[in-house]
């Protein structure tokens, strides 16, 4: 059993987001990037499957910057192999979208030949309706998103797919398949900094994809900071005075 897990970097959303001139991208200069939290779940689930079934796990990334560090973290977390897809772009261009990157990822998947591809269900910068279903469509494999439990039995995969209102279903799929993971069976494990430092000089294998970026709508898209007028009335002050004001509001409404 061979599992490929696709990892992406995402801006840290608690940082203040600013836009580049013209609004074609967020300003990436000062903002932090982290492993997409849902890919973090996908990584954990892949390692859990490795531990339970002796599967081999290969982590794949297609980041122009930070990809090596990302993949070293994956090694520290327990994956067996990593593969970085070279993703050179002009310095000024925004990083390619999920849609644009899909053909390169598909090429890497065809090279790695996994039985199962796992990635996070959502990446907050993705305007194109998410990666897992796109990959599955290109590979012509079955796919399920919003998955919160993954079980393997030979070449049959059973996943728990979640719906609104706490409803769910157990869905069985023949492998190979793709899943868009929401939650791993247990929270992502902690990795000691020393383990990461040990891997600092580990060479991350790179592949030069021959596929071209797919067309997307980035030229036709501009980003905007939403209008905040008409939003919440902000309560200023220290904790004590804010608490007093909230108490007052609740009393005015007869809620306490």
């Amino acid at each position: 059993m061979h599992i490929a897990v696709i990892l992406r970097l995402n801006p840290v959303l608690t940082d203040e987001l600013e836009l580049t001139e013209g609004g074609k991208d967020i300003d990436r200069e000062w903002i932090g990037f982290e492993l997409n939290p849902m890919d973090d779940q996908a990584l954990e689930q892949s390692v859990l499957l490795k531990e339970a079934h002796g599967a081999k796990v290969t982590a794949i990334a297609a980041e122009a910057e930070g990809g090596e560090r990302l993949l070293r973290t994956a090694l520290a977390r327990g994956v067996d192999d990593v593969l970085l897809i070279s993703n050179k772009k002009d310095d000024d261009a925004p990083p390619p979208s999920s849609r644009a990157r899909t053909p390169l990822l598909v090429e890497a998947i065809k090279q790695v030949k996994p039985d199962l591809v796992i990635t996070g269900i959502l990446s907050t910068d993705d305007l194109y309706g998410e990666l897992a279903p796109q990959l599955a469509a290109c590979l012509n494999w079955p796919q399920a998103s919003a998955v919160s439990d993954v079980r393997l039995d030979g070449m049959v995969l059973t996943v728990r797919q979640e719906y609104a209102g706490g409803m769910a279903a157990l869905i069985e799929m023949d492998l190979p398949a793709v899943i868009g993971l929401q939650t791993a069976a247990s929270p992502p494990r902690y990795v000691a900094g020393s383990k990461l430092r040990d891997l600092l000089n580990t060479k991350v294998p790179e592949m030069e994809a021959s596929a071209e970026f797919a067309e997307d709508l980035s030229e036709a898209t501009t980003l905007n900071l939403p209008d905040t007028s008409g939003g919440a009335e902000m309560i200023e002050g220290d904790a004590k005075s804010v608490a007093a004001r909230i108490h007052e509001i609740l009393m005015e409404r007869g809620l306490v």
Partner: protein
Amino acid sequence: MRALIFVEHSNGVVSENAFEMLLLAKSIGAECHGLICTGDAGAAQALGTQLTGFDAVSAVADPTVGHYNPEAVLIALKAAVETQAPDVVMTSYSTAGVDLAAGLAVRSERPMLGYVTDLELNSGGLSATSQVYGGKLTAKTDLPLPAVTTVMPGARKAGSLSGAAPAVTMLKPDLSGARTRVREIITPDNSSGVNLGNADMIFCVGRALGGTEKLPLAEALAAALKAELAGSRPVIDAGWLPKIRQVGKSGTKVKPKLYLMAGVSGAPEHLEGMESSELIIAINSDEQAPIFRKAHYGTACDMFQLIPALTERLNSGNS
């Protein structure tokens, strides 16, 4: 302009999202076709009668799609797109919408946009507004047609349109190639007696809570307020609170008199579950957090200072 709307349903009732998409499609002057996938012809007819305001309805009635099956429904949707040639395909931003829309877009070589909150006509096609970066930014896109979209729940206020429901036309795509089978349907476990849906007062904590060691702080405030304690999805996923206490898209939808929240960013999937609360008060140290666009009152105060201060205030004020 023709829109094909993928109609979701559960327990024999068409979901509100179908009517929200209908109103959005009507607002761009589209002729609206609905597609129902269900297990048998009787169920298809019964669902069809609910689709007042639609201009045409087709259905795939096959045991393979008796419960939502991601692969078989994608085959059915693609077949409907091939026969009806819609300019825009709309699915809701739901589990099914995530599964189907991007897959359909790749398979039918159409452009695709997710998280759409509004559509307008423009010269070449549509101008679409969507939400990205956890609701912190909006995107405006000139969307060439034909295209595929997922539409955010609540993009329009659902209300049915008058008129008779159109007759249901049956489609019979070949679903035999599906490698995906639904084995079991799981309903939420309500044995704990917690019912956020009926609660008048809710205090919800988010990822910023950081761990169970801080839970007593939150529990004390919930007790002082006589509120139910709830959590955003990461709080549940981390095991800090049980699933029954999750608010949002994949949790419970709530409409309390008070929804006090701390350390929750206000991602669209959370808002979907609580935005119709009567009074929303948000505590979040990031002044740019999307929740401040929905909350009635907000404060950028640190939650770990404010939660104990408010608990103390309530306890002394209540005594």
